[in-house]
């Protein structure tokens, strides 16, 4: 059973780094850029989560609904 | 044995269904969905419990076919070969025929006995009618044998009261001589006439030829 613990730390790291970059950029006075960075980070993590959700739904379908 | 097997099957089905229902309950993530699964599983279990009744009602139970199948199943093992059955039937048929023959013979004997005793002054000792079964199952008389004894003409218990009383005959007692010989020599013509008339009567009544009838007349004791 593959525990994607790497992915967990990845997501957490992305979150922390994005927060740091956001803070730094905010300090530098480039707020719109900071928002773009946050959005990008969010998109990446959302992509990962969406892939995992697809995986989950496929598994549930296989297990419960007899569809491959 | 069959019933027990069937019962075990039925019980197994119910028990397995209940097990499945329990597992389903355990599998459910939250209790809000439990009611639906419980409803469906309960209906399934009821169906499983009632399934024998459903089978009975659906099959349009044909009693005669049921009986026939059971009969066949029981007979198939104990069934005798067809030759034996035929032999048995033949045996039964011949037994029945001989029984019928005997009965007719007895009836005829009685009839002849009464008839002769009424018409002639004799006492019928023994009648023997032999019949024969023709291929078309019609009984024909083969032979009549009759043994009669001259009745004492003036005995009071004579069956033919219509006859005119005869004069008393002198009684001869011959000691030392055999009685039949003496009586035969005494009045043979009377006996022969009686025998002939009996034979004639029988011939007329039963439509027989004279060689089929044997009449023996014994003298008076």
């Amino acid at each position, binding site marked *: 059973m593959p525990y994607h*613990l790497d992915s967990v730390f990845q997501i957490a790291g992305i979150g922390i780094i994005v927060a740091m970059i956001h803070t730094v950029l905010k300090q530098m006075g480039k707020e719109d850029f900071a928002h773009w960075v946050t959005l990008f980070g969010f998109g990446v*993590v959302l992509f990962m989560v969406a892939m*995992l959700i697809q995986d989950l739904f496929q598994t*549930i379908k296989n*297990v419960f609904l007899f569809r491959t | 044995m069959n019933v027990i097997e069937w019962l075990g099957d039925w019980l197994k089905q119910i028990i397995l269904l209940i097990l499945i229902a329990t597992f389903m309950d355990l599998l459910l993530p939250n209790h809000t969905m439990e009611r639906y699964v419980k409803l469906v599983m309960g209906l399934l279990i009821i169906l499983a419990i009632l399934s024998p009744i459903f089978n009975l009602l659906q099959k349009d139970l044909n009693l005669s076919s049921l009986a026939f199948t059971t009969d066949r199943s029981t007979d198939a093992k104990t069934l005798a070969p067809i030759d034996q059955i035929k032999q048995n039937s033949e045996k039964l048929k011949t037994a029945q025929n001989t029984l019928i023959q005997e009965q007719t013979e007895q009836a005829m004997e009685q009839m002849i006995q009464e008839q002769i005793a009424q018409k002639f002054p004799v006492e019928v000792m023994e009648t023997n009618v032999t019949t024969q079964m023709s291929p078309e199952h019609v009984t024909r008389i083969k032979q009549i044998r009759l043994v009669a004894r001259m009745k004492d003409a003036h005995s009071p218990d004579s069956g033919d009261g219509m006859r005119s009383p005869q004069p008393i005959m002198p009684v001869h007692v011959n000691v030392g001589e055999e009685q039949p010989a003496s009586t035969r020599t005494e009045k043979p013509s009377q006996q022969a006439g009686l025998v002939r008339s009996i034979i004639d009567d029988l011939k007329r009544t039963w439509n027989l030829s004279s060689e089929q009838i044997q009449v023996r007349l014994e003298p008076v004791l």
Partner: protein
Amino acid sequence: MEIIQVVGLGLVTTFLILVIKEQKPVFAFLLATFVGIIIFISLAAKLAEVIGVLQNLATQARVNNLFLETILKIIGIAYIAEFGAQVTRDAGQGSIASKIELAGKVLIMVMAIPIITVIIETIVQILPA
């Protein structure tokens, strides 16, 4: 021991979420969803074993395959609806969570209708005879 792994994963994720939540609550939410999905997927294999046993039992009990399939579908719907509702509730959208649960109930009811109709038809068919 699967349970230790799962608990460890949960604890680690909880600490990480606590850290991130100060700066970016969105990432914290995504992380929670992610971990929840991972745990669920790891459990799905075990669930598949249990369901295999159930199927075996059902074939032995000569249950109509339609029934078992429908019941398993009901359980699957319940799991998915529960998962979605919890995630949504985590995100603070209790109303959406309750709507998801409602949808799950309605769909389960719809799924159960074929079984109930089959059973009721059988009973009605029997009754006049």
